[in-house]
């Protein structure tokens, strides 16, 4: 490994619809490479950009097979895996409701009022089609995937420690543990707790900034794929896992089914923390695998 200065550098750019913050023991070139990886994900998976793979799928995949980038293919495969394992609680075709509730811009194509993740057909390598005219949005899992790739890029450049934070989807690497504060569910500018992480990703989902009133009830962009009802309680869910894409997908499932997600969390060797609206942690799940002794929770 080439020698490098031990100075911590930290940069932040607007990407993926949020602010992406990268800190590492490295040189500016390393951080530029990590941002370049995130920009690639942004270009491929943005719902807003009409040239992205996601937009091309939403426009054309019902009419014909669409060839997508291997990265997009991998995120789609992961999404389908989570849909299968959660019996449809996790479902990227909830984009339909997100458009209806104005969380996403109106798509130019028409789409049916039904259909779900089972209508996404993964054909041969990197080719997909839709069996019904559904629309998809990768949402947080694209962010998680981008964080994972940024960490890869930093490691590949020889960086030994750092942290990549894309609006609450973050991953740390290196010998030293990082402390991450979690927002208070009902007062997002306050903190409810802190988590210490080493070689670990964490994703936090909360309704706080995004809850809206629609007619007489509140809606949020977090919804259960089976019922298409949004989770409206002011809670915050944090999930820690080895990969950020996994952590992000699991937060959505824990949000919808709470304790019932335990088996799935165990399968992915993940830990979870649920914080209620009063700021008190109400449920915590610890991975049965190797992290038990290191958890301290008062």
């Amino acid at each position, binding site marked *: 490994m080439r020698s490098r200065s031990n100075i911590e550098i*930290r*940069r*932040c*750019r*607007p*990407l993926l*619809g*949020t*602010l992406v*913050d990268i800190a590492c023991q490295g040189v*500016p070139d390393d951080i530029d490479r990590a941002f370049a990886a995130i920009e690639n994900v942004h270009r491929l998976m943005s719902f807003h950009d009409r040239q992205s793979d996601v937009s091309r799928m939403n426009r054309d995949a019902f009419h014909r097979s669409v060839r997508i980038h291997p990265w997009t293919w991998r995120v789609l495969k992961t999404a389908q895996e989570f849909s299968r394992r959660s019996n449809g609680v996790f479902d990227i075709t909830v984009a339909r409701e997100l458009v209806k509730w104005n969380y996403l811009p109106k798509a130019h194509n028409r789409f049916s009022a039904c259909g779900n993740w089972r209508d996404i057909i993964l054909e041969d390598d990197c080719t997909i089609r839709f069996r019904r005219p559904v629309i998809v949005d990768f949402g947080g899992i694209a962010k998680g995937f981008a964080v994972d790739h940024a960490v890869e890029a930093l490691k590949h450049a020889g960086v030994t420690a750092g942290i990549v*934070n894309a*609006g*609450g989807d*973050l991953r740390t690497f290196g010998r030293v*543990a*990082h*402390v*991450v*504060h*979690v*927002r*208070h569910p009902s007062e*997002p*500018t*306050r*903190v409810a*707790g*802190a*988590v*210490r*992480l*080493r*070689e*670990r990703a*964490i*994703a*936090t*989902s*909360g309704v*706080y*900034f*995004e809850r809206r009133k629609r007619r007489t009830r509140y809606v949020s962009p977090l919804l259960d794929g089976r019922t298409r009802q949004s989770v409206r309680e002011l809670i*915050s869910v*944090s999930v*820690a896992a*080895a990969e950020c894409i996994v952590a992000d997908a699991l937060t959505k499932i824990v949000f919808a089914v709470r304790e019932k997600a335990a088996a799935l969390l165990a399968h992915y060797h993940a*830990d979870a*923390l649920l914080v209620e609206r009063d700021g008190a*942690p109400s449920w*915590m799940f*610890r*991975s049965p695998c*190797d*992290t038990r002794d*290191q*958890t*301290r*929770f*008062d």
Partner: protein
Amino acid sequence: MKSELVFVALPISAIVAPSAFAVQYLSVDQAQRAIFPGKSFTAAPVKLTAAQRKAIEQASGVRVLKDEQPVWRVGTGAWFIVDEVVGKHEFITYAVGLNSDGSVKQIEIMDYRETYGGQIRDQKWRDQFVGRTSKSNLKLDSDIKNIGGATLSCRHITDGVKRLLAFYEIALKH
């Protein structure tokens, strides 16, 4: 790979006190070097006329809150602009590098401050951040380095950049 997860209980004071999460990423000088490495900069601040302000607002659909815009001319016709945006919970200073054809080269966040909405709109509170190259003497929670669940939108920056592109067309491009 060894993983570790520890939930840390915070003292009551930390929970009751507002979390003034703040990060200073780059000074003006550092942001210049980050966006245009090895280039020379000539300060060329712009003071907008009322007509220009109106034209920018009409072209971008974004309100112009200040008459004065810190601008630097870079080497061969490129531009470096420092700007601020205020959100509901956040106050952000950022730099935009424009290529000589007016396209965006790079955006870097210079300063990010987050606190209560009421406080952030208070001019006195905001004045504390004027002159960002010097360290702020405001007491901030230095323990908070990373914050989770911060799905803050970057909409204000997107709007800010839209406004700056109109600013370029109306006040810089000649």
